[in-house]
C-alpha cells in the first residue's frame, strides 16, 4: 500500500484542501512532498508555462517544456498518487480554498493571497527566497492570531536589503529570474522541506508552532552566518490591511519612488 508507513499523516492530510499558488521551484517541490505524504486534494495555480531554464530547479522534466506548469505538475502528481484530487488552474490567482501555500515570485500575488486568507479566514504559508536565493523565508499566517503578510512586508520594506549591482549593470536584469548558483536545487529543497514541516505543524499533524514567531529564515549563502542555519523571528501583528483600526494611521508617505 502506498501510505502503509504513514497512515496517520495521510489520514490527517487528506482532510485538507490545499491550494498551491505558484508552481515553480518551491511550489513543485512542496506539491511533491505533500502528495507523497498523503495530501488528498490539491489546487495548483500558475499562469506560466514551463521553460527549459526552469528544469534545473523543478521536479518537471524537459518532456513538459512549453506546457502550462499547473497542468504538467498535476499530471506528474497523479503519476505519484492516482487517487489524488487535483485541480490545475493555468491562470493568475483570484481565489483559493483550504490551506493557501503561496510560492509565487510576485509581491502582488502574495498580497492577493494574503487578502483571500484574511477575508476567508484561511491559514496561509508564504515560501520565498531573496537575495538571489541567499536566504530562504517562510512565513505562516493564521488570521486573527499571527501577523499577516503585509505586516511583515511593512517591516521588511522599511529595512530593505541593498540593491544588487547587476540591476544597474545588466540590461537584461530581471529580479524575478533567479540566477543560477551552485547547489540551487538543493537549497530550494532545503527551504521547501522546512516549509513542509511548518505546514504539517500548522495543520496539527506534526510538531507545534509558536504563533508569535511566525517567520522562519534559512541562511543559504550569506557569509558570516552558519550555512543552513534556521532562525525564527517575532513579527509585530497589526497593519492597515489586517487591522481596520490601523487604517486611520495611514498618511502621506514621502518615501514613494518612481
Amino acid at each position, binding site marked *: 500500500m502506498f501510505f502503509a508507513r504513514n497512515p496517520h499523516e495521510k489520514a490527517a492530510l487528506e482532510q485538507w484542501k490545499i491550494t498551491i499558488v505558484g508552481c515553480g521551484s518551491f511550489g513543485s517541490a512542496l506539491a511533491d512532498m505533500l502528495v507523497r505524504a498523503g495530501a488528498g486534494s490539491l489546487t495548483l495555480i500558475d499562469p506560466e508555462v514551463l521553460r527549459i531554464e526552469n528544469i534545473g530547479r523543478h521536479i518537471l522534466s524537459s518532456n513538459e517544456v512549453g506546457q502550462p506548469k499547473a497542468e504538467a505538475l498535476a499530471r506528474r502528481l497523479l503519476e505519484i498518487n492516482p487517487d489524488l484530487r487535483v485541480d490545475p488552474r493555468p491562470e493568475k490567482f483570484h481565489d483559493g480554498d483550504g490551506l493557501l501555500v503561496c510560492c509565487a515570485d510576485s*509581491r502582488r500575488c502574495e498580497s492577493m493571497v494574503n487578502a483571500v486568507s484574511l477575508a476567508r479566514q484561511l491559514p496561509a504559508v508564504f515560501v520565498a527566497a531573496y537575495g538571489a536565493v541567499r536566504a530562504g523565508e517562510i512565513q505562516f499566517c493564521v488570521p486573527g492570531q499571527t501577523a499577516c503578510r503585509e505586516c511583515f512586508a511593512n517591516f521588511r520594506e522599511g529595512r530593505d536589503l541593498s540593491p544588487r549591482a547587476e540591476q544597474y549593470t545588466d540590461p537584461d536584469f530581471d529580479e524575478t529570474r533567479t540566477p543560477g548558483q551552485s547547489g540551487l536545487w538543493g537549497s530550494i529543497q532545503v527551504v521547501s522541506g522546512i516549509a513542509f514541516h511548518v505546514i504539517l505543524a500548522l495543520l496539527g499533524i506534526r510538531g507545534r508552532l509558536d504563533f508569535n514567531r511566525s517567520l522562519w529564515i534559512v541562511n543559504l549563502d550569506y557569509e558570516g552566518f552558519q550555512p543552513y542555519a534556521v532562525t525564527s523571528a517575532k513579527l509585530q501583528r497589526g*497593519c492597515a490591511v489586517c487591522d*481596520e483600526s490601523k*487604517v486611520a494611521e495611514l498618511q502621506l*508617505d514621502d518615501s514613494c519612488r*518612481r
Partner: protein
Amino acid sequence: MLTDSRWQKEQELMRGTFPEFAPFMTRSRFGFEGYLRGCKSGTVYRVVLEGEQKAYPQCPPIVFMNPRIGVYWIGTDDQRRLCMQKEWRPARSTFANTLLGVIRFLDEFDPAPGSAPQADSAGGEVRRRLEEAGRSPEEDVRPPAAFCARGWRLW
C-alpha cells in the same frame, strides 16, 4: 477588497493634500480625477487614478494621463497607463502617495517651454466623462497650493 474605512481614509488624505482632485466610484472601480499643470511647459494634464474595488489595496491604482509624455506607458489605446515602477505597499501606500509619484513624474518629464508634449487620443473617455459632468479641463486645474507652501517646486 476595498473597505469603507479605507475609502474614507483615502478621501481624507486626498482632501487634505490634493483637494482639487474629485473622488469617483462606479460599480467596480473607484478613484480620483483632476488636473495638474506641468511646471515647465504649462500644459494641463488630465490625471485619473483608478483602483479596482475587489483588488484594492492589494493592487495599486492605475494612472491615466492626457496628454501623455514620452514612452512610459503600458497597455493599449485608451487603457494605456503610466508605468511607475514604484513600490506598492498595501498597508502603507495610498492614492495620495500615488499622485505624489505622478507629480514627481511630471516634475521630471514635463517638456521644456515651447515644446509641446506628445498628445494622443487616449484619455478621450475621461474627457467625455468630464464634459458630460459639465466641467472643462481648463476650469479645473489644481492651483499652486499646499505643496508649494511645503517647498515642492511643481509650478
